[in-house]
C-alpha cells in the first residue's frame, strides 16, 4: 500500500494552528506525550510507548569470536524492523529508508557514544566475547519513532542480564540463570535521542505526532520544505551524544540552543524514569512476582481497544470532567435538557441534507460572543 497521502487541507491547517500557538492534540510546544515502560517476563525485553507509538525491544546474547581489530571487546548489534503492523504503508521483510535511517541513528547513539562497557563483555581475548543483539520491532507508528525506539533500546539494554561465566583453564562454563545470578550490563551513561520538529525556522515542537512530522517534512507548493526534524541525543549529565537534522536547513542558531536546553530537561526526567522503573521491576522480581506483557492488556472493559488519547483535543479538555459531573448531579442534566429543548438555534445551522450541516450566516457581526455572556449567566 502506498504511503498515506496528506491533503492540502490538512497541511495548511496544521501549519496554521502551529504558527498560532496551538497543537492538534492540545499539547504545549514543549510538552511530550505520556511515556510508558512495560517489562516482559525475560531479562531485556520491554515495550515502550509514547502516546500511541509503541516499540518492542528484546536483547539477546551469544558467544562469538571478536573482531580482529578489537580482540578484547564485545559486540553490540542493533536491528530495527518495521512491519505492516506499524502502519499499512510498510511492507513485510523489506528495508525502507526509514529502517536504515533509524538503525544508523541508534547505532551512532549507542555504539559511538561508548555508553556500554564493551570490554566487560570479553570472555577470552581473541577467542570468545559476548555479542549483544538488540531487536526492535515497531508495533505502532504514531510519530516520533526515533525517540520511542531509542528509549526502548536503552531500557532493554539497562534491564538485560547475561548469564554468568566461569573459566577453568581452557574450558569456559556458561551457567544457567538458575545456577548463578546473571550479570547486568554495565552502562556508563544513558543517552536518549529526542526529536524536535522545526516549523518555519522559529517554532520548536517536542515529540511531534505522525501528522506533525509529515507536515513538517513535506514540501510546499513552491518546492521548499516547511521545516525539519532535529534529533538531539543527550545523556543524563547533559552531554550531547548525537545531533542529526533532516530536511530544510536551519537559518537560526538560536533554535538549536533552545532544542538542546529543552532536551537537557527531558533527558534527565526520562533517564530518572527508566532507572526508577528498572529498580521497581528488580524489586518485584526478587519477590518472585510474575511480570509479563499481559499487564498492559486491559480486560473486562468495553472500550479497552479504543484509543486513550484523542487525536484532536483542546488544551483544557478533560474527559473525566464530564463523567464525574454526570455521577454527581443527575438532576442537573434533566434541567439542562429542558433548557436546551425550547432554546432556538442562535445560528441558522441546519442539518439540511442528511449528511451535512451548514452555516447560513446571519447578517452582521459574528454573534458568538453572545454565547460567552450567556453561558456565564448559566454557570453562575
Amino acid at each position, binding site marked *: 500500500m502506498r504511503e498515506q*497521502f*496528506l*491533503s*492540502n*487541507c*490538512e*497541511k*495548511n*491547517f496544521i501549519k*496554521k*494552528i502551529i504558527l*498560532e500557538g*496551538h497543537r*492538534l492534540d*492540545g499539547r504545549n510546544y514543549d510538552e511530550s506525550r505520556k511515556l510508558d515502560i512495560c517489562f516482559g517476563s525475560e531479562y531485556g525485553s520491554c515495550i515502550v510507548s509514547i502516546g500511541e507509538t509503541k516499540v518492542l525491544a528484546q536483547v539477546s546474547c551469544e558467544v562469538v569470536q571478536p573482531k580482529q581489530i578489537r580482540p578484547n571487546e564485545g559486540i553490540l548489534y542493533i536491528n530495527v524492523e518495521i512491519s505492516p503492523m506499524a502502519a499499512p504503508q510498510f511492507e513485510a521483510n523489506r528495508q525502507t529508508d526509514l529502517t536504515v535511517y533509524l538503525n544508523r541513528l541508534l547505532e551512532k547513539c549507542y555504539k559511538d557514544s561508548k555508553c556500554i562497557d564493551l570490554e566487560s563483555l570479553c570472555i577470552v581475548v581473541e577467542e570468545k566475547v559476548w555479542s549483544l543483539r538488540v531487536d526492535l520491532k515497531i508495533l505502532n507508528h504514531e510519530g516520533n519513532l526515533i525517540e520511542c525506539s531509542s528509549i526502548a533500546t536503552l531500557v532493554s539494554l539497562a534491564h538485560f542480564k547475561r548469564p554468568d561465566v566461569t573459566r577453568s583453564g581452557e574450558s569456559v562454563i556458561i551457567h544457567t540463570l538458575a545456577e548463578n545470578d546473571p550479570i547486568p550490563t554495565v552502562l556508563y551513561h544513558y543517552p536518549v535521542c529526542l526529536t524536535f520538529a522545526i516549523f518555519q525556522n522559529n517554532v520548536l515542537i517536542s515529540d511531534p505526532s505522525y501528522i506533525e512530522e509529515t507536515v513538517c517534512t513535506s514540501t510546499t507548493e513552491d518546492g521548499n520544505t516547511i521545516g525539519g526534524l532535529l534529533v538531539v541525543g543527550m545523556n543524563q549529565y547533559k552531554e550531547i551524544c548525537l545531533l542529526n537534522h533532516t530536511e530544510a536547513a536551519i537559518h537560526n542558531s538560536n533554535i538549536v540552543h533552545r532544542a538542546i536546553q529543552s532536551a537537557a530537561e527531558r533527558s534527565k526526567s526520562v533517564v530518572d524514569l527508566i532507572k526508577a522503573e528498572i529498580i521497581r521491576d528488580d524489586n518485584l522480581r526478587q519477590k518472585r512476582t510474575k511480570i509479563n506483557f499481559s499487564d498492559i492488556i486491559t480486560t473486562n472493559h*468495553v*472500550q479497552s481497544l*479504543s484509543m486513550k488519547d*484523542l*487525536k*484532536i*483535543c*483542546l488544551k*483544557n*479538555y478533560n*474527559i473525566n*470532567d*464530564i*463523567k464525574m*459531573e*454526570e455521577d454527581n448531579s443527575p438532576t442537573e*442534566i434533566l434541567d*439542562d*435538557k429542558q433548557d*436546551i429543548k425550547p*432554546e432556538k*438555534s*442562535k*445560528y441558522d*445551522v*441546519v*442539518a439540511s*441534507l*442528511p*449528511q*451535512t*450541516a*451548514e*452555516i447560513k*450566516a446571519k447578517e452582521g457581526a*459574528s454573534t*458568538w460572543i453572545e*454565547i*460567552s455572556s450567556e*453561558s*456565564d449567566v448559566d*454557570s453562575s
Partner: protein
Amino acid sequence: MKVSIGDVVLPGDYFDEISTDNAKSRVVIGPGLRKEEDHVYITKAGVLKKKNPHTYWIDSYQKRVDIGGSTTAALSYLSFEGATKKNRPEVQVGDIIYAKLVIASKDMEPELVCIDSFGHKGRLGVLTDGFVFKCSINLIRKILSPQCPLLESLKNEWPFELAAGMNGRIWIKANSMKETIALGNAVLGAEFMSQEEIKKMSNNISATLAGHVY
C-alpha cells in the same frame, strides 16, 4: 469491433493483442478494460493506451482518487455541475472532495460523481480549507443517525460546517482554528458516550472555548 493501441474505442469493442502476444508474461489491465473469457473487452469510451512492458488502459477525462478503499476510485471531469469538455472543474491533486459513489461493485473500479441525478451539485464538490481526519465508521454512523444529539447541541454553540463520509473521514470547518479543533474534539470524543454525556460534553467544550472552565 477489433481495435489496436492508439484507437478511439467504445464500450463493447474488444482487443485481441493482449491474449495472443503475451501468453506467458504478466499483463496489467487498467481502468476501462475487462477480461471476459478469452477476450479483453472495453467498458469505457476513450483512447486505448499502452505502457511498456504490458500495461494497458483507457485514457478518458477522469482522475483516480484515493477513497480509502482497497483500490482507487475514478472521478470523471464531466461529473461536476456545469462541466463541459472545454470548461473543466478546478480540481488539484491534494484536494478534498465530497462526492458520492455511483458504482460500487465487487469486480469493477468504483466511480465517483459530484452531481445528483438532476445535474445539480447540492453540497457535493471540492471542500476548501478546514481539516480532515479519519475515524471509525461506527462513529460516522453514530453522528449521522437522527437520534444523535451531537450536531443538534453543537449547532447552538458556535457556527461550523461538517461533512461526514462513509469512508471514515470527516471534514470540519469553523470560523477560527480553535473552534475547528473544538469541533474535532467534540466529534471524536462522542464515540463512546451516551446521549446525555454528549450533551454535557458539548456544553463543557463551549464553556472551555469561551474561556471559563467550570
